[in-house]
């Protein structure tokens, strides 16, 4: 789209550059990574809130890559690193129309280096689409009527994005299906939920994101938290799940699930429940820290330490 | 009387050029800034003018935008009207000045003049402050008399520089000599009958009843302003121009 051309920066030539191809030993056969986790096992999640002191709320989310042995320099599977900042609730600009509810806006952007193919500085349509999904997921959670005439911005930067498939795969350079987007969305939901809690916006519950997929290998059996490079995904589903209410605020499902769609949704919810334990733990810890910090601060002002890291090993 | 020293912004006014005043107070006009205890700096570039009688000094400069000052006579253009006042523009792209709906001679709710957007009025500035809207009126509010102010109908408004407008309004000294050294209006006035209103905001309204004469007067004014003609050159131009219209 010519309209989206970025005119504020000196951009690289439009032809672009070809991605680096690393020389590998001729005898080294590139092998597609294989899932080593159980089908119902989630990858390890690292989540911490309060990473950006100047924002009202913030959080950082990371899924480490699965440790498959490899012979080349290029990692065979990707990982996910997302930061989220929340600004607000704050008054709407003067020229904005009256709103009796909190106006939540989301802004999802991949860092230019987040994926194998460089991303531009201007948001493209997939990023906008993710923004809409995230907005839907969060709007149902925040209690908007508590904050009339206010706005709240959720800004997400994806530092490293999940890939859509195995990079060396024959098909479209591993870009078919754009399944990686679904993992990114689940991560966005979880991290935004943590950041919103950190910002102290009223919510009905914590919303956590979960992904499940139907893969070709397992003959219709579903997997939780699929890493696109490890699977040949047929259908996938993301949910934004409120555990205490057993409700779904956001659901995005695509692909040919046939009759297995119900099981797919159930699996996605299961994944969301798993993520929730980390989310709840991280938010709880941050809250404890804050309470602790305020009492400590009264005594000792020099202590400015932030929250500790938290690593939780999870099995289904 | 006029001191021709040229000052640049930030330059100090030498103490010898300060007027001696009996009371020991000085009046600072536009373009000057006082830094206690006794330093006076200029803020614009121009020539320093000193009035020893009134113990006042100011800086004259030819360019720049007109800044409203209380008591100035201006030609304002109605932009739009609201319940209480007309919003008028004095210069383009600046905040509007307010002209009360009833700020005309003998105006009350029934007899007030109905002005449309784009109409011109000759008015006096009654309030000019940094924090509030500038206010103008078309009559002297203490006497209730128009004093020549009011809506201007017909005629033509010419744009001149604010400095030239000021020169036009300086009036004559004791010898009948033009202080502003502009003789266009007087000299032409000897041959041609016309009405004129000079606004400090750089507008001169002329109406002679005849298109050709009005155009000539406007052209002479603009020429005198833009080419900086001295009195002699002005006289020459006037003679030539009047010949063209057959006077």
């Amino acid at each position, binding site marked *: *789209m*010519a*309209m989206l051309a970025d005119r504020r920066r000196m951009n690289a030539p439009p032809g672009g550059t070809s991605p680096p191809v690393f020389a590998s030993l001729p005898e080294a056969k590139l092998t597609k990574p294989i899932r080593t986790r159980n089908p119902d096992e989630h990858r390890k999640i690292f989540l911490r809130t309060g990473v950006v002191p100047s924002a009202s709320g913030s959080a950082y989310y990371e899924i480490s890559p699965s440790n498959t042995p490899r012979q080349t320099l290029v990692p065979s599977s990707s990982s996910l690193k997302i930061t989220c900042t929340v600004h607000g609730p704050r008054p709407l600009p003067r*020229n904005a*129309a009256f709103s009796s509810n909190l106006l939540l806006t989301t802004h999802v952007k991949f860092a230019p280096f987040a994926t194998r193919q460089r991303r531009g500085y201007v948001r493209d349509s997939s990023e906008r689409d993710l923004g809409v999904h995230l907005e839907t997921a969060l709007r149902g959670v925040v209690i908007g009527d508590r904050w009339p005439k206010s706005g709240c911005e959720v800004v997400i930067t994806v530092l490293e994005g999940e890939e859509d498939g195995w990079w060396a795969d024959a098909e479209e350079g591993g870009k078919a299906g754009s399944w990686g987007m679904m993992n990114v969305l689940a991560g966005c939901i979880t991290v935004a939920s943590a950041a919103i809690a950190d910002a102290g916006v009223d919510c009905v519950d914590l919303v956590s994101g979960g992904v499940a997929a139907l893969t070709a290998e397992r003959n219709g059996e579903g997997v939780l938290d699929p890493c696109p490079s490890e699977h040949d995904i047929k259908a996938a589903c993301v949910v934004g799940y409120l555990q205490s209410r057993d409700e779904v605020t956001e659901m995005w499902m695509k692909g040919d699930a046939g009759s297995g769609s119900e099981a797919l949704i159930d699996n996605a919810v299961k994944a969301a429940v798993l993520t929730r334990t980390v989310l709840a733990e991280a938010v709880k810890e941050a809250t404890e820290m804050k309470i602790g910090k305020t009492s400590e601060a009264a005594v000792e002002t020099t202590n400015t330490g932030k929250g500790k890291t938290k690593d939780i090993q999870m099995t289904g | 009387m006029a001191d021709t020293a040229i000052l640049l912004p930030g330059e100090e006014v030498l103490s010898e050029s300060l007027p001696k005043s009996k009371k020991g107070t000085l009046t600072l006009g536009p373009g000057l800034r006082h830094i206690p205890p006794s330093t006076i700096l200029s803020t614009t570039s121009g020539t320093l003018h000193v009035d020893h009688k009134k113990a006042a000094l100011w800086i004259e400069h030819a360019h720049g935008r007109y800044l409203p000052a209380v008591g100035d006579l201006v030609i304002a253009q109605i*932009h*739009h009207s609201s319940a209480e006042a007309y919003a008028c523009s004095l210069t383009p792209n600046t905040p509007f000045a307010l002209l009360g709906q009833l700020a005309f001679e003998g105006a009350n709710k029934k007899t007030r003049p109905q002005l449309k*957007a784009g109409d011109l009025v000759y008015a006096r500035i009654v309030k000019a402050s940094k924090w509030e809207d500038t206010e103008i009126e078309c009559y002297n509010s203490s006497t209730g008399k128009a004093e020549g102010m009011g809506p201007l109908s017909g005629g033509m408004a010419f744009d001149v520089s604010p400095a030239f407008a000021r020169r036009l309004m300086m009036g004559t000294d004791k010898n009948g000599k033009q202080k502003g050294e502009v003789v266009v209006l007087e000299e032409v006035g000897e041959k041609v009958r016309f009405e004129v209103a000079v606004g400090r905001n750089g507008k001169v309204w002329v109406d002679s009843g005849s298109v050709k004469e009005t155009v000539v007067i406007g052209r002479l004014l603009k020429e005198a302003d833009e080419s900086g003609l001295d009195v002699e050159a002005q006289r020459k131009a006037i003679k030539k121009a009047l010949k063209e219209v057959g006077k």
Partner: protein
Amino acid sequence: MPLDSSTYALAHLRVDGRRWKELRRIHGQMSTQAAADGSSYFEMGNTKIICTVLGPRQPTKSGGRDQSREAIIEVEIGVAGFSGMDRKKRSRNDKRTQEMQYTISSAFASTVFTSQYPHSTITIVLHVLSQDGALLAACINAATLALIDAGVPMQDYIAACTTGSTASYASNDEDADPLLDLNGMEELELPFLTMGTSGGEDKVNVLVMETRIQMPRLEAMVSVGLDGCKQVRNILDGIVREHGKKLLSSR
């Protein structure tokens, strides 16, 4: 595909079999969309336009008090990606489109009694579904019909068509014929102009020419154009009357 002008010289028939002063089939419909204040569908040969008119209504753009003493006519033209031979997406900021929007807006600004609707906006939205020459002319005609449908008071209405000349600009062909209502292929080859007139007399509202041509050709083209616009006007008249009859009989 160069236009074979030799055939024309022989038989005086154009690529699509028309004679020099023949219009293509013109078809128009009014009130095609219930949601709009006025709407129309207009075909000039294979050029197909859908037009909707919204308003006169309050300006949608907030901010800045609007003190205009007359209605503003806004025109939006959307050229569908599938309208041409090749699929091409024309962005809305395209300068050619913007120029057309301005032309239509200022043409109607002097025909519509805009002073009756101070502080308001009349929006004309044009969708080009298919293009085969005479794009601007068809847009103007479609807008005319939609404005009539919307009941916007006008002094008169504008009818438009294109005229061309069989001589290319270089040849100083003395017996070059003027042509009426060029199709897309002819437009690529031959010099042409778009003309919009109002009233029964020869009053020109719009005249846009983008191709190079010898001055003597112009006169013939203009006079054929004036005549063509009259023909178009009669057709538009018919469409409006037909529509009016339908409305009355349905009551």
